[in-house]
């Protein structure tokens, strides 16, 4: 008889119980939680200037303050659109596992995650539609056959964790940034509050699944998982630089601007900061052998 992928473990059970209690304590109604003014000021930053992809880059030196405000508007719509895409994947993958034998242990917490993520997707999409008139479409395509088995479970939860950690880097800072409009601050702060629980769960399950895989997989197979996740991180970071956002901001040569940003050391410094926490976790847990990402 096969054993469940997520096996009863005193520490994991205790963490899950605690997270369920915290979710119940922090529960809110997203549909009445926020003020949604008809419009937001166009002569302000909609994202913290230091978090914009253009921050400190050579190409940004020629941009006016008005152009930077416009970029901040459309990069924030891009950021929330990426959240919508990532949450759609997260909910789909969690629903595929809830109340299955492999994940019976975490099913109670999965119900809270799904509910919370649905709320997040709703308020991020509402922001995009109200203030940008659109959610930027997901440009991804599944080209290969999906893998199955325990490695696939590990990769799904690792992807979800890394997505949440990258997003949380922005939410935490923008939730506290007094320069931003109160509506922008609040959606970021609320998301950060919920995500800190999801990240705590994600770290537990990812470390747990990788420990199990280490007993079964060869060094080469583990190296393949590492490379896959590093390339996933590269894709996630590069996705923050969207030529459609530059185009909507009225910037000429949006593709060239994107290429220049991706090659600029200032952007790699932002990347280093946003991935610092995740890299430490992955290296400390033995999931990564180093903190070097492949290039774009």
């Amino acid at each position, binding site marked *: 008889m096969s054993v469940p992928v997520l096996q009863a473990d005193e520490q994991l059970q205790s963490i899950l119980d605690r997270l369920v209690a915290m979710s119940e304590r922090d529960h809110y109604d997203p549909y009445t939680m926020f003020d949604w003014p008809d419009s937001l000021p166009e002569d302000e930053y909609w994202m913290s200037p230091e978090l914009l992809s253009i921050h400190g880059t050579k190409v940004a030196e020629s941009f006016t303050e008005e152009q930077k405000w416009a970029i901040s508007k459309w990069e924030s719509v891009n950021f929330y659109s990426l959240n919508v895409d990532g949450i759609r994947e997260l909910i789909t993958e969690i629903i595929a596992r809830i109340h299955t034998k492999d994940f019976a242990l975490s099913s109670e917490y999965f119900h809270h995650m799904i509910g919370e993520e649905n709320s997040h997707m709703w308020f991020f999409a509402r922001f995009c539609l109200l203030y940008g008139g659109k959610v930027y*479409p*997901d*440009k*991804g*395509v*599944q*080209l*290969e056959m999906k893998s199955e088995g325990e490695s696939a479970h590990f990769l799904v939860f690792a992807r979800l964790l890394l997505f949440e950690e990258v997003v949380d880097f922005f939410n935490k800072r923008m939730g506290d940034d007094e320069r931003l409009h109160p509506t922008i601050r609040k959606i970021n702060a609320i998301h950060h509050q919920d995500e800190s629980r999801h990240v705590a769960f994600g770290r537990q399950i990812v470390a747990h699944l990788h420990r199990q895989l280490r007993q079964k997989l060869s060094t080469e197979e583990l190296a393949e998982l590492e490379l*896959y996740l590093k*390339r*996933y991180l*590269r*894709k996630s970071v*590069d*996705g923050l630089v969207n*030529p*459609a956002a530059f185009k909507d901001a009225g910037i000429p040569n949006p*593709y*060239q601007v*994107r290429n220049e940003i991706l090659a600029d050391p200032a952007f790699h410094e932002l990347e280093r900061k946003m991935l610092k926490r995740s890299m430490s976790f992955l290296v400390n847990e033995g999931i990564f052998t180093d903190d070097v990402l492949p290039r*774009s």
Partner: protein
Amino acid sequence: MSGVAEQTTQQETERVAAQPAPTGFDAVIHYLLGKRPGLTEIDPELDLVENRILDSLGFVNFLYVLEEQTGEEILMENVTPSDFRTINAIRKRFFHESDQSGS
């Protein structure tokens, strides 16, 4: 010894920088070749996915190369994975050119 290697690398960098950047369909081929160092050409009917030249994780960056070189945004509802599987498929779908037997 390392000084010679560095000098050679710099000469190579300067040589590459002095060449005009490819444009249009040539830029697409150039990008795909860059994904597999050591590869100098790609059979136009080679399956790019099976041969790990193109995959889901590298797809969006590739899509932007296509958009930049065609000058048109690609709407995902108008394309299928088979449009990206070979050089000939890409050429036909996005550059509106017919198959060619050589690369």
